């Protein structure tokens, strides 16, 4: 993070090694083709330079074998690189089951982060080394993008939906966190740092200081304060669906479609409840759009998730 004249970024995650490997493959292919073409351009320009003003070179119309060769070879090479890139991206897409969950909200111009154990931080993210971490991203206002160059990962925080990303840090240290999507006046000030710690130190850090309530506890408190529980009863007698065991299961909605009750569905149901009503229920729930923050929504969702964990 403090090198005076760096030419290559640090490799500090499992993805960094894979992405750099592919990057160097692309660099080698590019150098090969670029140097090859430039070599021939220079060679021909010298060798076939115009020696007298009335030269009339013999015409060459073309060559089908050559055309086929320089269509097919680049095509095959492209497909190989495509497949390698898609393969890594596929692994980037889904976090492993043992990943720990951390939640981040982008707003002009800061990152607000909460750990499920209750610890909160701004523009800093502490994570343990050698442990997959899954980040759920939301935005309070415009589009931001959570970018950790040393990990070679980036994901946009888009208002109105959740995006997730994951990484596994491999080196203890401090790394840049940038906002990569232009978000207004202080876009370039939306810089933070990622602190990768040894696992034990991370546990100490998590439990140190004023941690207060965990996300689930905070969510439970909100659930009660906002009056959610008056309708969403555990007895199946409420005016809204019983939420125990609901998370992660398919639900049928009034349009006849079946949707997965994941984080995005729960978020939409809180902020825009009438858009996807569970079949058999009336559209009675008021919207909480603009009344609760994205962080509170995340806490409530954590609470609803916990209702399924206990089963």
């Amino acid at each position, binding site marked *: 993070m403090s090198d005076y*004249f*760096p030419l290559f970024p640090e490799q500090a995650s499992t993805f960094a090694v894979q*992405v750099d490997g*592919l990057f160097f493959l*692309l660099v080698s*292919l*590019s150098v090969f083709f670029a140097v090859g*073409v430039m070599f*021939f*351009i220079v060679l*021909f*320009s010298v060798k*076939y*330079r*115009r020696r007298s*003003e*009335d*030269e*009339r*070179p*013999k*015409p*060459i*119309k*073309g*060559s089908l074998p*050559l*055309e086929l060769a320089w*269509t097919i070879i*680049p095509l095959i090479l*492209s497909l190989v*690189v*495509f497949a390698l890139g*898609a393969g*890594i*991206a596929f692994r980037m*897409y889904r976090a492993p089951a043992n990943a720990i969950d951390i939640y981040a909200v982008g707003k002009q111009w800061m990152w607000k982060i909460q750990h499920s154990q209750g610890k909160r931080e701004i523009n800093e993210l502490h994570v343990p080394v050698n442990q997959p971490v899954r980040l759920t991203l939301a935005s309070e206002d*415009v*589009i931001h*993008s959570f*970018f950790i*160059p040393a990990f070679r*990962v*980036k994901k*946009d925080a*888009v*208002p*109105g939906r959740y995006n997730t990303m994951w990484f596994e840090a491999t080196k203890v240290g401090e790394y840049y966190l*940038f906002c*990569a*999507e*232009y*978000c*207004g*006046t*202080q*876009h*370039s000030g939306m810089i933070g740092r990622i602190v990768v710690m040894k696992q034990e130190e991370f546990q100490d850090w998590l439990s140190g200081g004023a941690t207060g309530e965990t996300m689930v506890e905070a969510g439970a408190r909100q659930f009660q304060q906002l009056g959610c529980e008056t309708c969403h009863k555990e007895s199946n007698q409420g005016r809204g669906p019983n939420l125990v065991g609901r998370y992660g299961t398919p639900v049928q909605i009034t349009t006849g479609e079946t949707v997965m009750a994941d984080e995005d569905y729960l978020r939409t149901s809180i902020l*825009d409840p009438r*858009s996807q009503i569970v079949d058999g229920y009336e559209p009675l729930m008021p919207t909480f759009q603009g009344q609760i923050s994205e962080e509170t929504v995340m806490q409530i969702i954590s609470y609803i998730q916990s209702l399924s964990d206990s089963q």
Partner: protein
Amino acid sequence: MTTNTTASQTSSGDVSYLSASYGIKSWLLTLDHKRVGILYLIMTTVFFMVGGLFASLIRLELLTPQGDVFEADTYNKLFTMHGVAMIFFFLIPSVPAVLGNFLLPIQIGARDVAFPKLNLLSWYCFMVGGTLATFAIVMGGVDTGWTFYTPYSSTYSSYYVALALSGVFINGFSSILTGVNFLTTIHKMRAPGMTWFRLPLFIWAQYATSVIMILGTPVVAITLLLVALENLFRIGIFDPALGGDPILFQHMFWFYSHPAVYIMIVPGFGVISEVIACFARKRIFGYTFVAFSSLAIALLGFLVWGHHMFTTGQSMYAGMVFSFISFLVGVPTAVKIFNWTATLYRGSISLETPMYYALGFIGLFMLGGLTGLFLSTIAVDIHLHDTYFVVAHFHFVMVGGMVMAYLAGIHFWWPKMTGRMYHEGWSKASALLIFFGFNLTFFPQFVLGYLGMPRRYHVYPEEFQILNVMSTAGASILAVGYLILFAYLFLSLFVGRKAGPNPWRAVGLEWEIPSPPGPHNFDVTPIVTKEAYAYEEADVTRFGGNANDAEGEQIHQEEGAEA
């Protein structure tokens, strides 16, 4: 259709389109495609200078890591207006509307475009759009980035976004009108004997470009209208607070704006084919492959927009399809580069100024294209997206590619357009300065991008400074190169020696008429009997001798018919 009638009495050898009539009105109401081309040349040059000025100020600010020259808001406006001026008011119209307007009818042996009045109207759309955008700048600027992403542009930005958007909207119609005009002209107004496969490759490139303009531009117009509807009537389209989806805006924006990149670069391909054939004195190697690769790029270019959105959370499988098709676009692009290189083989190569630019184009555009493959590779793009790597890639394609091609074309056809030669020494010196300055400006940005420096950053961490200083130093050299270029081209109008009809001994219908051409191009409709680039049959000494000859050689009217 008037191509079969002979020219009127006005076109004797010494009346050119420039001297046929005088006065402001004769220009502002002109129906002559060549004059419309010159009007576009003047105005796009003005926008290029304005955009270039913004670029210089951006590079000045980035000389140091702190924000010590401009306020953050001012900086954000500078890069936004640099993008808007350069993309919508210089790059998109430059080759089609300047060189295309001037040359397309002449190269196919026609006396004008199919719809001369629409052609003039397109310039007025450009002017109205440009005026609105300029007005937005003068009133206080726009700070959204040229991509106008919602919800920042629709809800959060407090500047003159609507005004700038309406400027872009109206300017879009100038593209559409030009596209309609060119397609019709190429289909209906080719001279007798000018079959499809005798067309110069410049025409094929214009054809492909026109297809994109007609299919793509309406989509950006629709998108901008939807933004306006959302703002006026609070209908939720892009704003999540109203139930809209900001990502939808990106889909619609890139559905136009990715093909728009090809609107900018494909006509440049056409220029390069003309210049290389002339200065290698050879047919373009693999003519049909070069011609159809333009069309392939134009069509595939419509199916790759999602590669701008790999990090937005779009579906994994959508990402894979977009990545796959993006790689496919690389193939016809590579085919072009190989064919141009092969054209040099056993040619008779003369390194005049246009050829400097054309060979520079191949090198720089190739790097731009190859780095495009990095960005098509999903896993690598996730790291590179929204960093300076993208900025560098885009400028290699747009400045290293497109602007170099445009300058190759300007230097190639300047004698035809103005009747004058420019200074050879100065032009070669500035071409070298521009090439060197360009590389120094943008190559360090690839490194910056891989290091992780995000784009649109007003202040940046200190360790990025050395590379930024290199970039700014390069930009100053680039600026000097451009200033020299403006100076000698301008001076050539007054002191340049007379060019004569064919200073390069090129083949092609435009070289068989006087420089500058008469108001109706051809006195007698030419009858075409040869393929394009038939250099082996050309009498290269016919117009030979000294181009200093006072009036050049008068071209006999029958020669148009012979060719």
